[in-house]
């Protein structure tokens, strides 16, 4: 038996560590450990409730908008104004979240996942006149390969012309994500840390020129998704068809849904959303009952054992606790392990007969020659994410057309002396929930359960591995020195961890040389 450890040691905190125990070439056991203590609620306690919407955006450098959304839903509910959010405000929130979702999906595929499958070095001898490919050729020529080279070498199977095409699209994707940020900024102010999503609706209303500015950019992004992103995913999928058979994991899925179609204060039930919330297992979707969500801390470095409903939890660190190996807790639903992310949104809504989801998924499966169950896999997550992007981009055209310049965009509110609220939405990487308790006009308690806490959770009170651990167990690793199979599975979840930190790390040299004060 030998152990593989995937651990980006350059970061002090906030990262994911994966340990896989191999028997020969097969993974027998896997442990995923978040190295970060969850103590964010301590910062929020005693502050003004409206700070939650701004401060929780800082939890995550890659999905701040979903945190702003969940926090704002929780505040709407606690302030008792969820039903009063005007249509303009509701739609603008959807457009801001949708813009961020599109940029995240595009960035994840090209910038992070594609490099495991697409060989950028194919552009090294490029002789054509595409400016992007010439620029990449120059980068490679100067030895500046770092941004394009995965830490773990892929087995590259695409024919050269497809590698070159996908590499050109990689460069274009960088501009598309910028266009997505511009869309977001039209209504949200700027990225990161937008200020458009606020309790009661949105901070600003629509004007004809804002709408025109948004629609023009959305059209560019939609054309990229349809003409480049989806075809590239299909091309990769065709050459890595075996990746539809690995990395499945727990095969149970949970989504909070997204994009409200009517104002509401309800956390989930009674909320009409474009993507409906729900759970999916064994080919069937069911309604989501949030009372069934619990978190265990049996193998987490916290006092207690659980499982408890998040709103009733405390967070008391216990670094030396026997048997604990992660700072993440173990969220479970109805006493079972569930995966979250775009794949969950697609499967739940497909099984519920969502006509647009069904049409897109059926067409995609027919193109790829696959059954629905193939989506429950490493490659299936990428395909589901791309379809999710297409559905959102198409729907945003409808929503932006429903904006009414001159009409209200935000309801009036006052901070109540006491109130409780729960806000739920799907971040680009899955279900995110915030719970707030207001007493004496201040935050008395705040709890967050973030997407990667579900996906990268450790074993629970019954020693059942989390979704990512289950997805890795049983995987055959060809070269334990270069465990690309495991890395591909982990990346397909698009993991993020609560609370990013950002430190620069000098390479090699003594830091003394650089000291200026």
């Amino acid at each position, binding site marked *: 038996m030998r152990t593989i450890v995937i651990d980006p040691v350059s970061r002090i905190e906030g990262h994911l560590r994966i340990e896989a125990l191999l028997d020969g070439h097969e993974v027998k056991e896997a442990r995923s450990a978040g190295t970060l203590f969850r103590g964010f609620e301590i910062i929020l306690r005693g502050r003004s409730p409206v700070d939650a919407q701004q401060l929780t955006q*800082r939890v995550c*450098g890659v999905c701040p908008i979903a945190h702003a959304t969940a926090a704002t839903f929780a505040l709407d509910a606690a302030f008792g104004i969820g039903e009063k959010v005007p249509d303009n405000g509701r739609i603008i929130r959807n457009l801001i979240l949708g813009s961020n979702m599109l940029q995240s999906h595009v960035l994840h595929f090209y910038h992070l996942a594609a490099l495991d499958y697409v060989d950028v070095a194919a552009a090294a001898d490029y002789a054509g006149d595409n400016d992007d490919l010439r*620029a990449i050729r120059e980068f490679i020529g100067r030895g500046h390969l770092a941004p394009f080279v995965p830490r773990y070498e892929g087995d590259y199977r695409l024919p050269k012309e497809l590698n070159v095409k996908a590499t050109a699209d990689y460069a274009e994707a960088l501009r598309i994500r910028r266009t997505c940020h511009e869309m977001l900024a039209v209504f949200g102010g700027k990225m990161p840390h937008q200020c458009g999503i606020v309790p009661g609706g949105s901070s600003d209303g629509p004007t004809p020129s804002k709408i025109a500015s948004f629609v023009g950019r959305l059209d560019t992004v939609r054309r990229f998704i349809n003409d480049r992103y989806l075809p590239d995913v299909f091309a990769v999928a065709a050459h890595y068809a075996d990746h539809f058979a690995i990395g499945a994991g727990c095969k149970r899925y949970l989504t909070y849904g997204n994009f409200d179609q009517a104002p509401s204060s309800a956390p989930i039930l009674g909320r009409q959303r474009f993507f409906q919330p729900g759970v999916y297992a064994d080919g069937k979707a069911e309604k989501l009952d949030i009372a069934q969500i619990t978190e265990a801390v049996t193998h987490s470095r916290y006092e207690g054992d659980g499982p408890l409903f998040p709103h009733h939890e405390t967070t008391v660190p216990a670094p030396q606790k026997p048997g604990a190996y992660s700072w993440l807790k173990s969220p479970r639903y109805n006493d079972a392990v569930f995966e979250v992310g775009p794949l969950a949104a697609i499967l739940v809504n497909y099984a519920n007969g969502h006509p647009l989801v069904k049409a897109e998924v059926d067409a995609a499966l027919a193109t790829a020659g696959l059954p629905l169950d193939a989506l429950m896999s490493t490659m299936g997550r990428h395909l589901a994410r791309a379809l999710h992007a297409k559905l959102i981009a198409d729907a945003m055209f409808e929503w932006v057309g429903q904006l009414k310049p001159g009409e209200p965009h935000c309801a009036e509110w006052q901070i109540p002396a006491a109130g409780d609220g729960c806000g739920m939405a799907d971040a680009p990487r899955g279900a995110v929930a915030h719970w707030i308790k207001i007493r004496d006009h201040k935050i008395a308690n705040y709890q967050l359960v973030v997407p990667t806490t579900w996906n990268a959770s450790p074993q629970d009170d019954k020693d059942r591995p989390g979704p990512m651990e289950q997805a890795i167990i049983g995987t055959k690793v060809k070269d334990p020195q270069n465990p690309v199979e495991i890395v591909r599975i982990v990346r397909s979840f698009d993991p993020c961890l609560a609370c990013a930190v950002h*430190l620069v790390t*000098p390479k090699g040299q003594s830091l003394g040389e*650089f000291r200026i004060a």
Partner: protein
Amino acid sequence: MPDTLPPIPSPRVVVLGVGNEVMRDDGIGVRVVKRLGEMGLGPEIELMDAGTAVMDALDLVPPRAHVLVVDAASGDQEPGSVYRFGLEDLATDRGVSLHETSLPEAFALARLAGTKFGKVVVVGVQPAAVEFGTELSPALEKKLPAIVETVRSEIARLLA
């Protein structure tokens, strides 16, 4: 009110405060930028709170502006030590998550997307405490005025 504003002169130096202000000293870059903002620097200097989203912030840098990044730096000197790096001095390790985009990588990707930068200088500050909290450690809080002065002299070097 019209929803377009009159053009403002393009800044020559963008100071990018990087880090997470809810992770105590990790947020030193953001704190420095906020302090500079209270000093009323001229229109040739633009201050940006980038949080941990460096790629997103680089989208907002105007063409050919010099960029001064202020970030926490992990190393072996005492807390509050200030270092100066070029991008070529920094590690570029890749991880499994989008959180793990290194600073040199973020600049390389922005250049590939067509952004032209002037000089890029990174000022790194050695943290004492990287953990949940909105306050700096006492060590950094004490040295904050000196750190801000060092950053100001780096801005002056870039403008010279």
